[in-house]
């Protein structure tokens, strides 16, 4: 809650800051304000196999590799580092730029306590870091957190060196070739950058413009702020019916803003935005909110709208702040995934099914907590009906999604099913929900039991969705748990077990 509050304040400050900047901006741009021009931030550059605006490249680099206290925008930081070097940049802006160091044992090698290190310090320890990295790689323990930490520091330092010797920043020269900044005379830079966006192909220009819009508007951050407001409205709607319609409208506009972001992301890469964890989570939020709006509108009740908005707030919150687990950067795909039809149908179906399960999960847990807090045990039938419908829709979508995946695999490399962990776990999740539906039919899960079962079943979806990537992929050794995703999953799992235990204890010993 406090974080969200901070976010809103930050957003507001940004806005006012922006207005101040516009007001104070000098009309004549001298050469030493070269980097502050918008043409620099919006200029196209080549990075990680794709044409991107410099502002995105700069933001991603800064977030991933640097730790600084400079009050300049990402593109100014990147540009001035390229042109003036670290020392001059620090003097100009009166701040410090250091390499981010996250792993404790890497800090030990660098003999530093702080979470960042000077570039010179990393360079001096380069031999020790490289040797450790090679040892760790050769140990056969797989991608350990330590190896990742070492690799990240080394690649951050390398990248900074490349920026400093002007080989990282690629510009489009007059012969339509991407060349390093080092081959360009600084006097021509602004002109070259202005021309370079015109030299792009039409499609590249379209993608670049959309990416700049995405970067400037930040639809997912605004959706978060709005979703929070809509959630508060819906909470008010629980008490006073008059707030029902405003909260429904607010929820629809969250859906709209998020859909705008999804479409922009699709335009930037010219493919369905369903290719990484960030995007699947994004779809899940969209799907859960859609389900909530449909149920709330049909039922004319605010309760499930509030719950759908809660799901959406959690998801948007993860997308905004859990950057180590959900990477928002847009990368080129590996060749096998480059089929828009299968990619969009298969992944969207699966993700929407996860969205239904996530929504059912949130409702189940709220119902469980609510039933625990009541003195007299209230019937959960109304809640369970909504949970069941979500589970039914989710099950149909999941089965269809798994089959679509099988058909795609068969079409692409001739194998319908291969016991790959991702597909096996999605089948496990389907089987678990099938067990719940059969159990409900057999009368095994009634009332509270059904609510509890559907709360726990989502743990298997989480495993299929994230666990395969964050736990199984790291090889199940103890180091795997040091990375962000695994500890997040473990926390959620333990919290769920806690709620279920309490709920069971509470229902066995009713308070009179």
């Amino acid at each position, binding site marked *: 809650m406090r974080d969200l509050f901070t976010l809103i304040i930050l957003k507001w400050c940004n806005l006012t800051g922006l207005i101040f900047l516009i007001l104070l901006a000098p009309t004549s741009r001298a050469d030493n304000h070269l980097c502050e021009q918008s043409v620099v931030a919006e200029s196209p550059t*080549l990075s990680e196999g794709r044409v991107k605006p410099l502002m995105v490249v700069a933001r991603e680099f800064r977030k991933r590799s640097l730790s600084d206290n400079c009050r300049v925008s990402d593109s100014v930081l990147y540009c001035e580092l390229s042109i003036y070097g670290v020392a001059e940049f620090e003097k100009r802006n009166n701040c410090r730029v250091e390499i981010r160091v996250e792993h404790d044992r890497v800090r030990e090698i660098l003999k530093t306590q702080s979470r960042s290190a000077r570039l010179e310090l990393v360079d001096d320890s380069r031999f020790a870091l490289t040797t450790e990295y090679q040892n760790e790689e050769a140990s056969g323990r797989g991608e350990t957190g330590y190896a990742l930490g070492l690799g990240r520091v080394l690649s951050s330092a390398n990248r900074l060196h490349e920026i400093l010797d002007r080989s990282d920043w690629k510009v489009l020269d007059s012969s339509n070739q*991407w060349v390093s900044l080092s081959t360009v005379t600084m006097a021509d830079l602004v002109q070259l950058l202005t021309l370079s966006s015109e030299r792009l192909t039409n499609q590249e220009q379209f993608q670049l413009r959309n990416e700049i819009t995405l970067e400037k508007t930040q639809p997912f951050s605004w959706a978060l702020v709005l979703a929070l407001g809509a959630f508060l409205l819906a909470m008010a709607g629980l008490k006073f019916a008059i707030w029902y319609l405003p909260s429904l409208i607010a929820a629809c506009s969250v859906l709209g803003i998020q859909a705008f972001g999804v479409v922009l992301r699709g335009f930037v890469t010219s493919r369905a935005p369903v290719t990484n964890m960030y995007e699947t989570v994004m779809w899940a939020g969209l799907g859960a909110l859609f389900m909530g709006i449909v149920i709330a509108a*049909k039922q004319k009740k605010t309760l499930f709208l509030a719950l759908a908005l809660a799901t959406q707030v959690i998801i948007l919150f993860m997308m905004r702040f859990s950057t180590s687990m959900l990477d928002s950067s847009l990368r080129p795909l590996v060749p096998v995934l480059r089929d828009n039809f299968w990619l969009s149908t298969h992944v969207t179906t699966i993700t929407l099914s996860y969205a239904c399960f996530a929504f059912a999960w949130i409702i189940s847990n709220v119902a469980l907590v609510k039933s625990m807090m009541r003195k007299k045990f209230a019937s959960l039938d109304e809640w369970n009906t909504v949970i069941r419908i979500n589970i039914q829709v989710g099950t149909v979508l999941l*089965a269809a999604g798994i089959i679509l995946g099988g058909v795609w695999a068969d079409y692409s490399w001739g194998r*319908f099913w291969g016991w790959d962990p991702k597909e096996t776990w999605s089948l496990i999740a389907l089987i678990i929900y099938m067990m719940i539906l059969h159990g409900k039919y057999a009368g095994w899960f009634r009332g509270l039991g059904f609510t509890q079962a559907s709360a726990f079943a989502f743990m298997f979806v989480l495993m299929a969705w994230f666990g395969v990537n964050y736990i199984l992929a790291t*090889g*199940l050794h103890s180091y795997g748990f040091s990375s962000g995703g695994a500890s997040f999953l473990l926390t959620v799992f333990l919290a769920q077990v806690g709620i279920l235990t309490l709920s069971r204890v509470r229902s066995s010993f009713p308070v009179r």
Partner: protein
Amino acid sequence: MKSRLESQFKWIRKLLGSARFAIPLLGVFALAMMVGTVIESRFGASVATLTVYMTWWFFLIQGLMLLSLIVAVLDRLPMQKRLYGFYLIHAGIVILIVGSVLTRYLGIDGTIQIEKGLEKSEVSLQEDQLILETTEEKLSLTLEPRVLTWTGLKTLAKTGLFKIDLIRYIPFAKAETIFVPKKGSTHVDLVVRNEQLAEKISLLNPGNLISPNSKKMGPLEIKMISWDEFERTRESAHQAARIIVQGESQSIELTKLPLNITLSGGEQLKARQVRLEKASLSFIEVQIGSRVYKFFPRYSEYPLKDHLEVDRSSPVRIVGKDSYINQGPWLHLAVDPNGQMHVRFIEKGALKTLAYPDGGILLPWMNLRLALTKVRKDETPELVFSEGAIHKESDKNIKAAQIQVTHFESATSTKFWISDLTATEQRVGPLSLAAMIGKKSVKLPFSVQLEKFQMEHNPGTMDAASYESDVLVHDSASKEVHSHKIFMNHPLKKAGFTLYQSSYFQDSDNEYVSVLSVNRDPGRWIKYFGAFVLVIGLIWHYLIVYTKISGIKK
């Protein structure tokens, strides 16, 4: 009595069709899959397949599920309108399982690895086999897939001449080199280093003149030759050379051709100089029996094939000063009968031959220094295997087996190790054989020849954006040839087989090798149909009927 049996049958049937049987069964199935994925993440896909997915008990679970699905439908007959979706779901899953069984037992799923220019029709499958070749016959024997080491004694095959017993089979082995006595064989361990690099090199000369052992370090070729060859080519003048044929060495003078030599086996060797006036080119043609070899001694000691490729597998070589000088940087080693190593190389255009001095030699390339670690005379390396760790990447794992071959007539029997690393050559009495562990294979009714392998990169990176194989398809029956491009989502379909572009890798010469997966699936359309029925049933049952019956009360 009869009624009791009947009531028992009724009870079992009722149980099989009931949810209280189906739910625990689904639970066991899910649990087994969870175990499978954990094993997969630790030990790799092949181990998970052998310990879970392809085991009898996993099939049993699926069989019981099939039974339960069918009985549940039979119990709810005659058809009720309310349950149409239910029937479709269950029927869909049954059809899906039937299709999968067809795929499993009648389908083919293998790969072809193909280099540029080569033509192949053999598809290698997943299953391992033991391949044993003698001069007369080739045996392919099935090796049962295993995770744990097997020890015992099992006769794998018996022919009129010999029999093969399996003594030990290690599916996850580690290899170790030991040295065993062998007359005439020489082995040296060396270290070549400069400021940037240090490389350990082992070279072997098995004691004949046929196969010198060499190692390339960038352009530098380090070659171990026999002492005999080293001695005889020591002081050769420019035109003097030696012709080396399968363990014999003859001195010849390149200016005094043609000549005829009778080899020890009785064969005639004819050598003559051929001049191509138009191309102002001359080469030496050597004829042994009906085979003809063309040599350009100034270019290489080996004969050249049609496309000017050096034929290193040739049994004939012509060795002379010229052939040495004009080759890229090289270093020749030999060990004399006293165990002293000698080296020869070219320094400032002159041939330099010297005995290896203690402390190493500075070579005239890249500041490289050669140091001798160990000379083993009359010893030869042999691989022995023991149980090793299981690697997740399947290509790091070694399979090894110890077998015993008994030759009946000479009543000799020999025990030796074979593996999937290289073929082991072995003599058993008068029998000479080669054995190894390889993949089972099937032959396609056509062959594919790789004309070109193309790759596109994501701009500014070395990551592949797409890759494709341009192949020529040769039909074995009609002898027709046509070309086809195979790339992602654009496979080649022919004679019931589908060839997909699967991946690629670079071989030791940095040449791209295209990997095609080959597939034949008679269950495909049955599976698709089952899946379709299943999805229709699910939609019917869960989205249309079931929401209506107990929909949301207002």
